[in-house]
Every structure is written in C-alpha cells, then in structure tokens.
C-alpha cells in the first residue's frame, strides 16, 4: 500500500478521535468555564488563570 496513503489514514484516524473527543466534551463534560466551549477567541479565559 502506498506510504502516503497510510500516513493519510493515520492522520484521518487521529483527527476523527480528536473530533469525537471534542464533541463528547461539548455535550458531556462539565467545564470550569462553561461559556467558552472551546472558543479561544473569547477574551475571558478559564476561571483558573495561573500566574
């Protein structure tokens, strides 16, 4: 099998896992900062900002 195709499949699996985890987190994990939901454009960071 083409080596490029194998790498692409591995990337695909990694991205799918990450995406699935993000979706799971969005719906099922209670966050410290529930407003942001993964949006890093927000000016208000996590409530536990460590200096």
């Amino acid at each position, binding site marked *: 099998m083409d080596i490029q195709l194998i790498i692409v499949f591995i990337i695909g699996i990694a991205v799918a896992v990450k995406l699935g985890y993000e979706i799971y987190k969005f719906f099922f994990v209670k966050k410290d900062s529930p407003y942001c939901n993964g949006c890093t*454009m927000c*000016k208000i960071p996590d409530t536990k*900002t460590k200096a």
Partner: protein
Amino acid sequence: MRLSELHTGETAYILKVNGNGAFRKRLQEMGFVRGQEVKAILNAPLKDPIKYEIMDYEVSLRRSEAVMIEITMLQEEVEQKKKQWQSDAEIDTDEGFTSRTSESSESIVQENRQHKVPKNIKVALVGNPNSGKTSIFNLASGAHEHVGNYSGVTVDAKEGTLHHQGYTFTLVDLPGTYSLAGYTPEELYVRRYIVEEQPDIVINVVAASAIERSLYLTTELIDMEVPMVIALNMYDELEQSGRKFDYRSLATMIGTPIIPTVGKKGLGIPQLLNEVIRFFASTQQQNASHPHIPYGRVLERAIEIMEREFQHIDITPFRLPLRYICIKLLEGDSEIERIIRQLPNHQNIFARRDKERAYIEKLLHEDAESAFTNARYGFIAGGLEETLSERRYFSETTRKIDAIVTNKYLGFPLFFLFMWIMFEATFKLGEYPMQGIEWLVEIIGNFVRTNMADGPLKDLIVDGIIGGVGGVIVFLPNIVILYLFIAFMEDSGYMSRASFIMDKVMHKMGLHGKSFIPLIMGFGCNVPAIMSTRTIESRSSRMITMLIVPFMSCSARLPVYLVFVGIFFSKYASLVLLGLYVTGILLAVLSARLFRKTLFTEEDTPFVMELPPYRMPTLKSIIIHMWDRSNQYLKKMGGPILLASIVIWFLGYFPRNMQREAAFDLQIETVKRSFTQNRIDEQAKNTMIADIEHIRMTQHQENSLIGQIGKFIEPVMRPLGFDWKISVSLLSGMAAKEIVVSTLGVLYAGNDDNQTSLQQRLKAETYPDGSPVFTPLVVIGFLLFVLIYFPCIATIAAIKEESGSWKWAAFSIFYSTGLAWMVALLVHQIGLLVAS
C-alpha cells in the same frame, strides 16, 4: 423643582428621590441622596440622556428618570433640611465608627510574627466598576486580564496566584459592583462569593477619584464584618486635583487599613500585599474586632429589636453576622428574606420586621431602605469632612473632549467617522503585511508541490492544510489592527460616551444604553459580549441584548469579508465593510424592537451609567490586548481551523473512483501522444490537459462525500445564488466563522501546478457553461448570509448558559439562520430582477 428641569451648568441640591424598588435604590447607591449637590453638565446629541456631576464623578441619567428626583437650587433650604434630617435620625457624624470590642483598630493590625500563621492567603478583590481592580489583579498576579475604561469589564470571577514574602496569594477578581444590595446579578454574585467562599481577606479597591461614592460599598462590607484592606486606587488622580487626604485618620476611624495605590503604574502594590499579610496574621492571632456603622438612634433601636428576635436561633449556618441580617431584613432585601423563610418561626420575625419598618417610616418620614442608604452616605460625608480637603484643581480635559464628542451636531458624525477610520485602517494598513503572509504561504505551497512525490499526503498538505489554514492566517494583521482600535476605544473611556450618545436610540429600540457596550464588544467576539450582558439589570433588556449580539459582526467574520471585498469591491472596501457592520446593527435594532413588542414586553430599567474621566491608555495595556488577540488567533489556526480543514479535505478526497480516474488518465495520455506525434502544438496540449484536469476535479468533488452533502443542501441554497461548495462552506462555518474561508480554500483548490491566493482562485471559478460562480450579487448575498446566520457553537453555548435555557439558544439558531436566508433571498432575487 425636578432634576430634569435643571439647565446645563446649573447646580442644585437633592431633596428627595421618588420612584420605588430597584430604580430608587440604584440611584441612591450612585450618590443621589438627599442634600447632595448635583450639577447638570450636558445633554446627549438627541437631548437625552443628560450628564450630571455628583460626588466628584460624572453620571448619565435619562430625562424621564431625572424627573423622579426632587431638587432645590437654594442652599439655605437644604442646610435647614439637613438639620431636620439629622435631628430625626440622631446621627452624630463625629461619633466615628463604633466597635464591639474594646480593642483599637491599630491593635487589630499589629504585627504578630511570633505566632505561626498559614502561608496561603485567599484574597478577593472587590470594588466599584472601573475602580481599577483588574489592573491591580494583573499587576499582582502577572495575569493578562482584560481591563477597560468603562464599567462591567469583569463579568466573572477570575483567579490568579502569586508569591510574596514567602506567602502564596490566591487572588480572585470579582465583578465590579456599586453595592451588595442584590438587585443585579453581579451584586448577588459578589455577595454570595464572599459569604460562601469566605476569603481570608477582601481587598476593597476604592477609586480615589470618586471616593465618596466608592466608600458606600465599604460601609456594606463593614456591615458584613469581612476582614478587609482598602486599596485607595488612582491615588495620583486625587493628588493631581490638589486635594489632601488624611487616609491614615480615616483608616483608624473605620478600623480598616488603607493603602494608596496607582494600579496602572504598579505603585503601592507591594505595600498593599505587605498590609494584607500583616492584617491576615493579626486576624489569625486575635479575636477580630468588627467596627460598626452607627445608623442613628431610630435605626439602631430597630436593629436591636430585630436582634432580640434571633436570640434563640442558631444563625451560624447562614455565615452572616446577626447585625447584617437584621439590617438587610429591615431594608427588605429579598435574598435575606429568602434565607429567613427557612426558619421555623419566620412569621414572627417578619411580623416584627414589618412593625419596625412602619415605625422607621413614621419617625423618619422615609422608607427603611432610603433611611439606611442616607445614613451610610451621611456617615461617609462625616468621615470625609474631617479627612479630605476640597478639590483645588479641576481637570478640564474630560469636559473639553466631551464637549466635542458628545456635541449635539458632532456626536454622531464623529462616532461614525471613528468607525470608518477603524475599518479603513483595518483594510488598508492590514493589506501590506497581509500580502507578505500571502507570499509566504504561496512559497511554502509551491515548495511542497515541487519537492514532494504525487500522492494523497501531498494533496492533504497542499490543498487541505496550506489551502485551508493558509487562507485564514493571512488575515492576522487585519485582526490585530481591528483590536488595536477597539482597545483604544475601551481604555480611553470613549466606549462609555458611545453608550451615552446612543442611549436615546437604544431606548427607542426598547433597550438600555448599557446594552450598547455588549453590542460594541460583539464586534470583537460574541461570547464575552453575551457574558457582559450580566451588567444589565432588567432581565428583559438582558435577554433582548443577548439575542441581538450575534448580529454584531465579530472578528471571526472579518476574514470572510476581506476575501470577497478585496476581489469584488476593492475600490470601496472600507465603505462595504462599514455597510456590513451597519447592516448588522440595523438588523439588531429591528430584531430588538420586534422582541420588545412580542417576547419581552415589560418595562426596562433606569439608565444610570458612570462616565469615567478620559484616560490615556498605556502602551503596555494596548500591546497586551493586541498580543492576546494575535495569540488566540494563532492558537485557533492550530486547533479548530486545522482540524476542520483536514476534515473537509477528507470529505472532499474520498471516496476515490479508480475507474473514473483511469479514464481521465487515459484521456491525458491520448493528448500527450498526440503532442509527441506532432498532431497538436504545446499550447494546445497544455490547454487540453488543463481542461481535462478541471473536469476531473469537478467530477471528483461532486461525487465526493462533501459533494454529496453539498448537493443535498444545494436545493435550499440555490435560490440565493449559492452553489454546493458555498453551501458546504456555510455549513462548516457553524463551528467557527473562519472555517468558511478555510473550507473555500480547500474546495476551490485551483491549479495543481501553481499555488495562488484564495482570492485569485475564487475569482477564476466558473460553472461548466463558463459563467462566473461569484458575481457581485452572489457575493453580497453571501456576505449578508455570513453576517446574519448561526453565530457559532461557542456563542450558542454562551446564550444557553446566560439565559439558563436551551430554548433561547435554539431560538437564536432558528431566528438568525431563517433571517439570513430571507435577507439573502431578497437580495438575490431583487438583484436579478433589477439586472434584467
């Protein structure tokens, strides 16, 4: 005479504040108490609201609300009445703060290093809005929290840690609040935080420039018996006004250490932290004494009677001092009433409370809530009379700037001029670094193209990652410039003036001037804008503001505009950009009116808003602001945008049809053979191969997974003039708006041999009949659709959190997307009719 009748430049004295509930309480907390001097400064451009000066600070009030305040212009009359009020309440302002224990305040703060004390100190920062809490928090903890020269920047508690003199401080920055009355969400939030979290020390940040009003919150904290150190912030402004303040004497009087600080320059912060350690150590070693505010004979008697009602009741679970509970019960505080209702004999307590309230009203000729507020301000006035000298120098800078920027003829044109300059700079200045980044992306793309063997990985890198992420990253300079302007408006104090001049317009929409700040913040990011609606007292105004914030075009939408405006409207780029933003505002106005008439019909709350003096933003704060933005934008490139680009590429690359591919390969082979046999020249060969490749790519995309999704939704989007690729980009943009651009970058991959900018690729895109996919009409519809439709997942989640219900989040999704579809349809169909 009413306050609304006071002419510009005239001074008068307050006799009485009419109205009821939250309205009157809010006015009194802001310093509109009997006997207080008030001056009319100027009218907003539309004659409403009016700016007044009271207690050395400036505040705006609507005409309809100023009419509720009775005034007199005769100083003798108010002096006479003052004597009457004083004898009624029997408040001796020279009495000073009383203390239950015999220890002097000095002894409270005495250092006691012999004893072991814990090394971790939990410190809560409280204070009025715009008193500089966040500046102190940032300096002390090294955090980069956003600060601004307007109220309500902090809408949630933020935590930071720092180490000083061997101690670990956990600093918590709480939202700014004028009191702890419990009328607004922030007031309740701060009070609950202090009660439930029980910080070791509270740093009460008092703005030295408006000390009289700021000390009101201090009196409430004293009543709550919280261990407190006062940071007398912006002390330089007090000194510049030529005043002398004997803060040491005041500290002794109130039994609370006071440390002068200048938050933005970092002056006094080490001393403040030392004092916190000292005070913390003393509270650990001794039975802390709690000073009390004397409320005068009538009120003190009522408090004492109420205290007797609790004689046999264990109030320790409430974590509040008995005296405070009694005061709040007498004031009619609904939160405390709710707590007391849990007690078995609450009927007796409420019956006694009602009797005492009636007794106070009878004797003092005012309700209990006003009596306590007046007594607190009376006490503050007494304390300051002895320690604070009169102001000698009056800074005219703020007045001079306000005379221009809030002028009735110049106010609005200047506001729109600022906005136009902001967009012009965003587009024009940003163009040069943007071209540089674009060039870099092309170089990288071409390098991979020429040096990597053909295959799916090469396609993923070139079309997926470089095409997707590279299409978005080029707009980084524009984002930075936009935020430079927003930071300047926020930090200088102009943002509050914008609210001031817009209040009448907002009022016509059924909204509050305060709603304007979240709306302006929405230009940056909708999520914090929705969170900042917490500063709006009325739930109906808050809900309406929350639902219209998504129409404020956030910075994530800017890359989409820039891609298309740059190609199709380059001559009028700034005007088109401004037009899009104005359209968003207009839709917000119309939606607000609709919501006010249908969903939220109740009355809104008074427009009482502090207008801070103008302050020159420091270079450091502007740089921090811009750096944070750039950092967040870059992080987004490596996170959701990269992820989305790869997902879109996968959906566009698979499934592979080997038979179809082989057929195209055969066609190309035939063309090449024709060339070697000299039947066609090189130019014809290249043209034919390019045509075959184009058809191959089009067929492949149409049959790919994303093509099938696009084709599925295309019938709905076709009346708007959108092809399936545009439809897919809009679908993927629901996660975050920049993904619209990265998706277009992946789908419109362009020529295989040469990396060109996304803009060139979009311009060159045609339908099979040769007509362009993107016409100016399609682009206008598309940009409007992007402006109006589904904000983004994070914004929807914020609406859900702030409204407390998925119902409103779902409403926002359907309303905005439905409206976007309608507007784009109208634009396209009317445009086609006009063109034909």
